[in-house]
């Protein structure tokens, strides 16, 4: 497999250092502060993609509602930033004062504290995931049902956000943040700091995902994907195995959302509903869902392509996104990461004596030792 380089211990460390240098030194040196901000945004999507790769690629759970966890993290962070920006005299954020005179809703109050906010960003998304995960996986709800339910969850979340403008900013969402834990967001040095926090977070998540993949748990997760009944017969509880992966993915999406807010400067229901939730899957599918780095690189590449393509051809991007889904998922289910093995398969098929069979969907490159 083409990612064999990542199997040796030293190769892994080397690759990691290379990525760190590229993200932390080369990119900030080469890019303007505007472009660096965009890259920071892509890194946030990449964090979500790492989690999707784990839950979907490894665990076989088609997570269509990652926007919910992304949104939870983002809105929690945004609430804190809005409260911190609020004038000291009233303590009421600007947009609330505009729409109503009722003051700050009770459930906002805890997020005045930065510590509570950070804890909530880390705990609320996985709590929701555990709840939904156990509810569906324990009852052995079919895979397709889970996909549709997670999608409906995304729809309901967006409807709730839009329907409560007094407390969530409605369809506008929350924006106009002045500072991030006291640091001014208008200062380029602080924006650079945010970018670096995002890059380090992403690297940490990739490292975590790799450790999970090569661990016994990782093997169990793949086993659940491929033959859930057999895992059950062996005495494990697949519901727990899958819920853990789902919760880890939720944490990653939540952190990504929390960083997205100060980097991009706005969070709105349009970033968390059904369409963006599925959009997050494109990059993962393109890059190769079962691999470690495929989702990350795929997500960054697709987000970059969206920005630059839509600058030139507004309607062209929709076609490109649709066709990407169709072509990659239908004809190259292993993503670009499997391109080499697929090509090799074709070449071998042309040679008469040995006919290669269909390229297998799951490539287990990351976990083979």
């Amino acid at each position: 497999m083409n990612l064999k380089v990542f199997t040796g211990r030293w190769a892994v460390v080397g690759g990691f250092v290379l990525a760190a240098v590229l993200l932390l030194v080369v990119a900030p040196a080469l890019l303007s502060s505007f472009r660096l901000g965009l890259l920071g945004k892509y890194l946030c999507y990449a964090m979500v993609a790492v989690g999707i790769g784990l839950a979907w690629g490894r665990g076989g759970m088609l997570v269509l509602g990652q926007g919910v966890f992304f949104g939870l993290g983002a809105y929690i962070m945004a609430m804190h930033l809005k409260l911190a920006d609020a004038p000291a005299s009233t303590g009421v954020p600007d947009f609330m004062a505009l729409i109503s005179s009722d003051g700050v809703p009770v459930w906002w109050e805890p997020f005045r504290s930065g510590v509570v906010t950070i804890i909530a960003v880390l705990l609320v998304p996985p709590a929701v995931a555990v709840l939904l995960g156990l509810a569906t996986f324990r009852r052995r709800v079919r895979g397709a049902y889970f996909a549709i339910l997670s999608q409906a969850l995304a729809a309901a979340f967006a409807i709730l956000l839009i329907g409560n403008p007094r407390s969530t900013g409605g369809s506008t969402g929350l924006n106009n943040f002045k500072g991030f834990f006291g640091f001014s967001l208008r200062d380029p040095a602080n924006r650079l700091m945010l970018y670096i926090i995002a890059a380090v977070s992403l690297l940490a998540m990739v490292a975590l995902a790799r450790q999970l993949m090569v661990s016994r748990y990782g093997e169990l997760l793949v086993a659940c994907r491929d033959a859930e009944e057999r895992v059950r017969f062996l005495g494990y509880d697949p519901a727990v195995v899958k819920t853990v992966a789902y919760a880890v993915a939720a944490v990653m999406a939540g952190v990504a959302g929390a960083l997205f807010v100060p980097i991009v400067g706005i969070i709105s229901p349009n970033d968390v509903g059904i369409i963006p939730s599925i959009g997050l899957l494109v990059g993962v599918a393109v890059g190769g869902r079962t691999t470690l780095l495929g989702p990350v690189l795929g997500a960054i590449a697709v987000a970059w392509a969206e920005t630059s393509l839509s600058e030139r051809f507004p309607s062209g991007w929709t076609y490109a996104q649709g066709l990407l889904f169709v072509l990659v998922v239908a004809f190259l289910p292993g993503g670009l990461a499997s391109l080499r093995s697929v090509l090799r398969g074709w070449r071998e098929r042309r040679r008469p004596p040995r006919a290669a069979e269909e390229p297998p969907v799951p490539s287990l490159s990351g976990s083979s030792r």
Partner: protein
Amino acid sequence: MGLLVGCGARVSDGGGTGDAGAACVDTSGTSVKVGFLNSRSGTMAISENTVFNALKLAADQINGAGGVLGKQLTVVAEDGASEPTVFAEKAEKLIRADCVAAVFGGWTSSSRKAMLPVFESNNALLFYPVQYEGLESSKNIFYTGATTNQQIVPALDYLKEKGAKSLFLVGSDYVFPQTANKIIKAYAKANGIEVKGEEYAPLGHTDFSTIVSKVKAADADAVFNTLNGDSNVAFFKEYKNAGLTAEAMPVLSVSIAEEEVGGIGVGNIVGQPVAWNYYQTIDSPQNKKFVADFKNAYGASKVTSDPMEAAYTSLFLWKGMVEKAKSFAVPEIQKAAGGVGFDAPEGTVTVNGDNHHIAKTALIGKIAPDGLIYTDWTSGKPIEPDPYLKSYPWAAGLSG
């Protein structure tokens, strides 16, 4: 990381120096860049494409007549994709990467509110061409559509004049209808009008049977409609099929212009009143030329509407400001803006230097069987913009 944290400015230091990018505008050559930011894809593309066309027409006409301060306009067009986040990102791109002198566009309140901090922190200029809910003014935004006292308040005056004693409010669930209804309720209270109900539908809602049932049961004298987009189609079809008519219970709409009538179906909405500041049928030489030029450029079947006209006007107003300031620099333009006027298709409009809105005449029209809107009532003279409704005693306490 500690190093980085150490050198960043704290909020309490006054926000740091910032890297306000508007200064990168290049005016040394024979041309100057302007940005058009409209949704060319997504749900709002329906409306915003027409605004883009109107802006393009204005740019071509200005260039044909020699440009602004002798410089040709180079248009950089970006797609807002109907998403607030994209609007904010593209606005930043236009200001900081493309270094445009001014940006024109936006439609929904969400898109404007998303862009506002971007323009304020970079000290750049946005010209926003759509009627909106008021209670806002920024030195970085020029509002060329109506604010509430130029559209909603006259519409209420009109209903009161026609003898409406009770109202039912129907709107989409977002900031414009909610703020508008807050104003309407304050007005109603002061004028002895009863508000019999207030219903909100999620954006894009398509089943109006329940809401129309409630409207029918309430039996108010008129309905005030702040629904947006496709919901209007479902609402008016349901309204007609429930046996309600413009004669028995008129529905006054503030978001339906000539462009939307075709999609709703003239038969479903004929005779209903709407409130704007411009209709294609306005009988003036400026408007006749505008309509003819627009049809010439985009096809005889195209109609012109209020937001398109306001967008077209906005580019000429910017030209007027630049020429008065003799500079493309934002601070100079902000200083020169007050009093700049333009003989627009809707009539003469003048920029208010204090709140950056423009004085416009309010017109209530009725939708005719030919799909066009004909003026039924007019405020007679341009109304000075008052986004915070400070000159209306009944509105005291709304903006706080």
